[in-house]
């Protein structure tokens, strides 16, 4: 049998293969591009969700502290990751949550200074750190420190949510009202994707109120990761309330931010009153869950 080629048939085959290649290329490109957009969006939404959960935890702490209720605990949750987009099978990211009551991870001490002597009013410590393990968006670290949220990305820290500090006008000056949280209990960590139930309890609390005389200075000293964020956060708070730097307050930076022996000091020089409400909070991960 004589072999005969059909040029028209070859053309149909070539066209078909080309069309399939184009369709697959466009499809692949779409999945890659769209997947990245969806993935970044999922990762960013998740970071926002973690911040919201930490704020919800702070609200629970504040509720317990203001009620002085050391018997009741409040359930909270943090979602550690995201399942991503089910159709593209992308953007699945996880996270790690570390609870550390250690002062090395964060410490804030409030002193009353007068004429070269100083009195410790109160000191709080501990941090709750969430570290994301994102697939598309850059990794973020969100840290809860005494009610303030510090966001670390690209190696830079910002205070994404200020602590419960309030500067109020008094009859002839300023007053400062601080709600502080110190973390107690055992160190723990967990990782994964799902929601983690956390129980917030108040172990103890203290309240200090002082009327200050001229010459008395309220000194806040911060030590640990996130010091820079606290500097900008407190400065924004104070200047936003009309206080003037180097008149009503002053900032002394450490020469080495990473040094554990040096600290950031913010002195409030023109205060008439100081009020500290401090809660010893324990955040427990459900051991039987």
């Amino acid at each position, binding site marked *: 049998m004589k072999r*005969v080629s*059909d040029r*028209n*048939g*070859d053309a*149909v*085959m070539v066209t*078909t293969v080309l069309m*399939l290649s184009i369709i697959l290329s466009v499809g692949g490109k779409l999945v890659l591009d769209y997947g990245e957009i969806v993935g970044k969006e999922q990762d960013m939404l998740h970071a926002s969700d973690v911040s919201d959960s930490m704020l*919800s935890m702070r*609200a*629970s702490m504040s*509720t*317990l502290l*203001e*009620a002085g*209720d050391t*018997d*009741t*605990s*409040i*359930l*909270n*949750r943090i*979602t550690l990751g995201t*399942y991503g987009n*089910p*159709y593209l*099978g992308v953007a699945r990211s996880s996270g790690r949550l570390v609870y550390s009551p250690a002062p090395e991870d964060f410490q804030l001490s409030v002193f009353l200074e007068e004429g070269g002597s100083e009195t410790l009013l109160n000191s709080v410590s501990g941090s709750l750190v969430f570290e994301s393990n994102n697939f598309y968006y850059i990794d973020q670290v969100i840290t809860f420190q005494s009610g303030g949220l510090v966001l670390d990305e690209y190696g830079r820290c910002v205070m994404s949510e200020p602590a419960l500090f309030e500067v109020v006008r008094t009859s002839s000056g300023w007053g400062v009202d601080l709600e502080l949280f110190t973390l107690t209990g055992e160190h723990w960590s967990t990782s994964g994707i*799902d*929601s983690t*139930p956390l*129980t917030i309890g108040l172990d103890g609390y203290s309240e200090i109120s002082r009327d200050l005389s001229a010459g008395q200075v309220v000194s806040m000293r911060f030590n640990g990761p996130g010091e820079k964020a606290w500097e900008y956060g407190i400065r924004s708070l104070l200047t936003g309330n009309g206080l003037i730097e180097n008149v009503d307050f002053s900032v002394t930076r450490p020469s080495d931010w990473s040094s554990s022996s040096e600290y950031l000091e913010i002195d409030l020089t023109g205060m008439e009153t100081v009020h500290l409400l401090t809660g010893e909070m324990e955040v427990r991960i*459900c*051991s*039987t*869950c």
Partner: protein
Amino acid sequence: MLNVLNHGFRKEGVSNVVSLIMIAGIIISLLGMVFATYLPAWGKDIEVQTLNGMMDSFMDMKTGIDTLAVGSDPGSSYTTKFTLGSEGGPIFGFGRMSGSIELDDERGLVSVQDQFGTTYSQGRGALIYRSNTINVEDQFITLEAGAIIREQSQKAILKGSPNIVLRTDQDTGDLTLYMMAITIEGNDQSFSGTGSYLARTTLLSSQPSEYELDALTVISIEITTGYQSLWTDLFTEMAQENSLVDGVDYSISNGNDANGNPSVTLTLNTLDVIDIRTSIYQLEID
């Protein structure tokens, strides 16, 4: 004519048919792969996410219950959104699932009594979710006596701890029971489907009480539950954390309550103080 016919058949036609068959083969292969692999995986993912969302809603509701009890005035409320199911994905609605949620104010009975029949506190009411899934095992989520319990494949795990704590004072050695007895009232109602419902929890009252017990008083905490094993484990863990001795300081028994429903009873022989908060809520689901 020479171009058209050769040996009685048309070569262009043969090529086109071969191409068509090949294209059809490729398309069928792709569809087969999508049906066999991707659609079940997508469906499973959608169902798992829906069930996780439901668990988050239960936890959020418990956050509201705890928060209202501590720092709120009667009449304050907390609203939680419950999404019972999923409409499924865009392709054939894969992952479509439904569920039902039910308030049963006769379940989840909890009672604290002494051996003389004196009742210190009571609570009742349970919120129950039942899923109707296709690609994953069905789940049941129950909020009873302050605990959130998830059951799947007839195995129950605790997802949210109840507000029941035993604590030994390090200085005095006194053993104290801290507890919140929760009552969830409302019309017995059930909703099903794939849609979202809002559950408004309103605090009716929250009353703390403290009782100092003498050495002869024996306290029993009875919980009416279908999850006897889980509550037994939980009570055992609480007792062991306080170094209590089984049979001496405490005992745990499974039985039936006065209505014949299965229950678990923790009996504490050496309890010194009961610090209990009795909180009553109204739950409305719209």
